[in-house]
């Protein structure tokens, strides 16, 4: 401090008169020149540092160049001067909210050449605490202000990467933590920097930090390190292939306490499934889950490693006590083209023991992951514990589960198997026990009072069931035959009766017995159309409140969306629906529209149009019957009604990833806002699959409305049998293509392993043979399909001829199969 006072004395001038700050700063700046003694320079820097807060502009304008020179020449030699000059530069370049330009201006001057940045990255190698610490801090500020410039200089800095790695290894916590923050910005959006740090071993260092800190329990430090790992990997395929070659991916799983090599038939350990969670731990776990999801994404779900990660995410989502957000994230990250054997994995869900504050848990009966997934979508987590509330997190989780289900049943084979399980083994056998999905779908609602839990599960059941049927003629064919056994009104509150504590008796046993059928059991379609009309009645009751009506509307939307997708292109199902009184049910709401009520009439009009367009099977209600009704309702009116669906926010706001919406009723003025966003009440109306379906088809429906009853179908001319045949052949081809692909992949994997060349060669030949075999089979099938189509053509030609002859002979020919002559412009 002696220098300090001496300098001041020296600067005060001969008369000892006080000077202005700017005069002082000017003189101090002169003293920064290399010509002065080191001690004087040091004193000048210290003085400038003291003045820099209050006189940022003066110090910056006069002294910046000198300070940079001092940094370059003295900081390495004298750590006191190094610390002081860095701290001054930090003050100058920091962007303070009051005067933003100044900070940027000085940053730009500092970054005019690469010199200072190179000096800084060299200084990082300096082991003295303050030099290292202030250098990191200063680099962080420069990066924040002008990231790209610093990044481009960094790539040419001689010891840059080495020193960055060194600070990640620093034993002094403060330095290491500061380093994590700086590195996050340094690597942002720069694949080159990401790669060069990877080359120098950044992943290993970062994982060391995480491990030292105690994994995901390691607080913000672990968070910083995991964020860096994520940044090094995301969008960087080169780094991803490096990473997956290391032992780090298994280490990621073990951070979640999940054993990476867990065999498929073994249950996940309890210490993984049940953990103590806090917010910070959830954030850290979320980062790990995010990285796992990214690795699955780049690997495709075929590889063995990927299936380990997928299982880990499935277990978190379905059978753990992880926070809801983490579960949702895990489910969302499952790959869309998932061919993961959900029905073969057995999971063990848990339930919190009431009143134990999440500290005690009951283990439930093991169930297949598929059953657990359906249960989760239908009732929410923990057996529907909170399903009567419409909490944002809860609904998002259920929506995510529904999407996983949708992806899982993408293959026709799987849909078929699921629907088949709802049918008797043989036609004469009794109906099998009602599956949870069918139960939730077909159970009539108690319309005397609103039961939110039940309404939600009915609605989700509609969404799930639509995933099974959408554009699958085969699935629709089987679904028509479903006759659910005896149903019992759903219990309110805890709707999930399908999981019971491992030590308890199943209440389901009671529901199954007592066959009370005097009448023949109804088909599912009949039940749905009856349920629909009951709920439509409930919503038109004059005494119902807005809130109640909104709930009935939701169920109606669920039913109508499902039915639209079911009846589309399926004349037999249309026939069944019309025969069970569906027409009257639909006409009613269309007939009594009001300004405030757009949604339901619009969907009814849409379904009515579908019923008209695809009413192609002989039956009591003919196309002419419907045509008359349509005319009475007014074609223009119906067309307009259908279009108006687009105006409704509940429809319009749906995106592929956002089907959960804020509930307007809760957000009413006067009510206090919810404390946490996660406690916010929300609702679901449509899913993206339906919105997509509607958008692709509403125009066809609108165009079909004015057509003549005798006119042939305007949409795809194939009859359902052909469509089914084509679809199933397509499926076979798709499967074989997949098989070939996976064989090729295996082939590749195999051939990358050394040492087993002869054996592998043998395998290669075998696999090649198999591949060409499958290709052969595929060709045969394609040929077969072609032959079938030709045959079909011949048959219909013959039929046409026969009919013509019948006509000539004066016999009657059925009208709806009228032939389509040579002009094919219908």
């Amino acid at each position: 401090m002696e220098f300090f006072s001496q300098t001041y004395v020296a600067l005060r001038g001969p008369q000892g008169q006080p000077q202005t700050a700017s005069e002082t700063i000017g003189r101090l700046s002169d003293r920064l020149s290399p010509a002065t003694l080191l001690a004087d320079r040091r004193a000048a820097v210290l003085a400038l540092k003291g003045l820099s807060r209050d006189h940022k502009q003066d110090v910056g304008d006069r002294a910046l160049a000198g300070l940079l020179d001092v940094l370059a020449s003295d900081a390495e030699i004298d750590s006191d001067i190094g610390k002081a000059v860095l701290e001054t530069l930090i003050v100058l370049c920091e962007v303070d909210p009051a005067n933003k330009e100044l900070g940027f201006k000085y940053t730009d001057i500092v970054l005019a050449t690469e010199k200072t940045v190179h000096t800084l990255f060299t200084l990082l190698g300096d082991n003295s605490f303050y030099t290292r610490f202030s250098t990191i801090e200063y680099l962080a500020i420069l990066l924040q202000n002008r990231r790209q410039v610093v990044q481009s200089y960094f790539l040419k800095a001689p010891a840059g990467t080495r020193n960055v790695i060194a600070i990640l290894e620093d034993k002094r916590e403060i330095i290491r933590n500061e380093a994590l923050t700086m590195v996050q910005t340094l690597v942002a959006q720069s694949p080159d920097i990401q790669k060069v740090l990877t080359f120098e071993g950044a992943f290993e260092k970062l994982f060391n930090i995480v491990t030292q800190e105690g994994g995901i329990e390691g607080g913000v430090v672990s968070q910083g390190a995991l964020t860096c790992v994520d940044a090094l990997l995301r969008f960087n395929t080169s780094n991803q292939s490096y990473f997956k070659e290391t032992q780090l991916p298994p280490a990621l799983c073990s951070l979640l306490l999940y054993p990476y090599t867990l065999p498929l038939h073994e249950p996940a350990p309890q210490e993984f499934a049940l953990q103590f969670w806090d917010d910070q731990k959830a954030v850290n776990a979320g980062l790990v889950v995010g990285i796992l999801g990214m690795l699955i994404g780049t690997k495709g779900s075929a590889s063995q490693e990927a299936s380990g990660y997928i299982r880990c995410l499935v277990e978190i989502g379905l059978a753990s006590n992880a926070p809801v957000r983490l579960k949702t994230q895990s489910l969302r990250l499952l790959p869309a083209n998932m061919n993961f054997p959900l029905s073969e994995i057995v999971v063990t869900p848990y339930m919190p023991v009431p009143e134990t504050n999440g500290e005690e848990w009951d283990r439930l009966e093991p169930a297949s992951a598929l059953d657990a997934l359906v249960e989760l979508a239908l009732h929410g987590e923990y057996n529907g514990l909170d399903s009567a509330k419409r909490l944002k997190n809860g609904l998002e989780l259920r929506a995510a589960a529904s999407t996983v289900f949708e992806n899982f049943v993408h293959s026709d084979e799987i849909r078929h198997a699921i629907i088949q399980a709802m049918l008797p083994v043989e036609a004469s056998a009794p109906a099998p026990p009602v599956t949870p999905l069918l139960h939730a779908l077909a159970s009539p609602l108690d319309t005397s009072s609103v039961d939110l839990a039940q309404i939600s599960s009915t609605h989700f059941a509609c969404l799930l069931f639509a995933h099974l049927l959408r554009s699958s003629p085969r699935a629709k064919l089987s679904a028509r035959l479903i006759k659910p056994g005896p149903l019992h009104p759903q219990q309110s509150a805890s709707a999930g009766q399908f999981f019971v504590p491992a030590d308890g008796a199943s209440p389901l046993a009671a529901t199954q017995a007592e066959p009370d059928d005097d009448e023949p059991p109804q088909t599912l379609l009949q039940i749905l159309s009856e349920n629909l009309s009951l709920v439509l009645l409930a919503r038109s009751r004059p005494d119902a409140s807005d809130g109640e009506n909104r709930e009935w509307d939701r169920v109606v939307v669920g039913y109508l969306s499902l039915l639209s997708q079911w009846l589309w292109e399926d004349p037999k199902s249309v026939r069944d629906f019309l025969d069970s009184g569906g027409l009257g049910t639909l006409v009613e709401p269309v007939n009594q529209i009001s300004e405030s009520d757009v949604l339901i009439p619009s969907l009814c009009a849409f379904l009515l149009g579908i019923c008209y367009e695809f009413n192609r099977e002989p039956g009591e209600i003919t196309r002419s019957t419907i045509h008359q009704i349509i005319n009475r309702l007014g074609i223009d009116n119906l067309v307009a009604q259908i279009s108006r669906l687009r105006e409704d926010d509940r429809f319009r706001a749906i995106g592929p990833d956002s089907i959960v919406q804020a509930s307007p009723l809760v957000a009413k003025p006067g009510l206090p806002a919810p404390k946490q966003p996660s406690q916010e009440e929300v609702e679901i109306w449509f899913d993206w699959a339906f919105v997509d379906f509607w958008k692709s088809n509403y125009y066809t429906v609108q165009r079909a409305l004015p057509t003549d009853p005798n006119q042939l179908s305007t949409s795809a001319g194939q009859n359902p049998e052909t469509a089914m045949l084509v679809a199933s052949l397509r499926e076979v081809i798709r499967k074989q293509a997949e098989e070939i692909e996976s064989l090729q992949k295996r082939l590749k994997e195999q051939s990358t392993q050394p040492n087993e060349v002869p054996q592998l060669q043998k395998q290669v030949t075998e696999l090649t043979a198999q591949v060409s075999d499958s290709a052969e089979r595929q060709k045969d099938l394609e040929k077969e399909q072609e032959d079938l189509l030709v045959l079909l053509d011949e048959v219909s030609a013959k039929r046409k001829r026969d009919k013509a002859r019948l006509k000539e002979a004066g016999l009657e020919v059925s009208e709806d199969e009228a032939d389509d002559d040579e002009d094919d412009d219908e």
Partner: protein
Amino acid sequence: MSSITWHYVLKFIITGDAAVGKSSLLIRLTDQRFLTNPDPTLGVEFGSKLISIPDEDKIIKLQCWDTAGTESFRSITRSYYRGAAGCLLVYDVTNRKSFVNTKSWLADVREHADPHLTCILVGNKVDLCDETQDAPAKPRQVSTEEAASFAQQEGILFVEASAKSGVNVELAFVEAAQDILQKIKNGVFDDSRSPGVKLSNQPNPNSLTLEQTSSKNNTCCS
């Protein structure tokens, strides 16, 4: 993946003029493929491969960083020299200039890399001037003798190869790896001093067990 095990991890870099076939050599090594139209490399690309050294009965994990030959990436690719244990210095036998330039590449490598780095000169694209055919697709511009004598002068290994036909590609890496193993045996790298060499069975006090022999160590849930 848990069954794969290795004794050493060696870091390699691949350098040389643009378009001499560096990426093609790496892809041939890792994927057994040849692309007629690969994109020029931007910066660096990573590829890895397990090879076995039968004489030593060792399995080696090669971590290869394939660098861009284009001048504008020089400063980026240089950062990789220091950490490498081996270097493939590639030229194109039908392009004399690329051979002449290996001298300056080598100087650059020597300036920045570990002094014990093993370098192998690789004359690529020999398929183009297949002498057994009457009309080679492209005349050779660098004779085998000339390159061999240059390599000898500089004290580096040498091989001619083709990423297209695959001839000698793995050999180039194996020879270099063998040389590195020899150096390890001779104690050139006393206690993992080369950043490009990692031993599987020698725990590094600074790193957790992640880089060690794989297989075990997966039941980390205790």
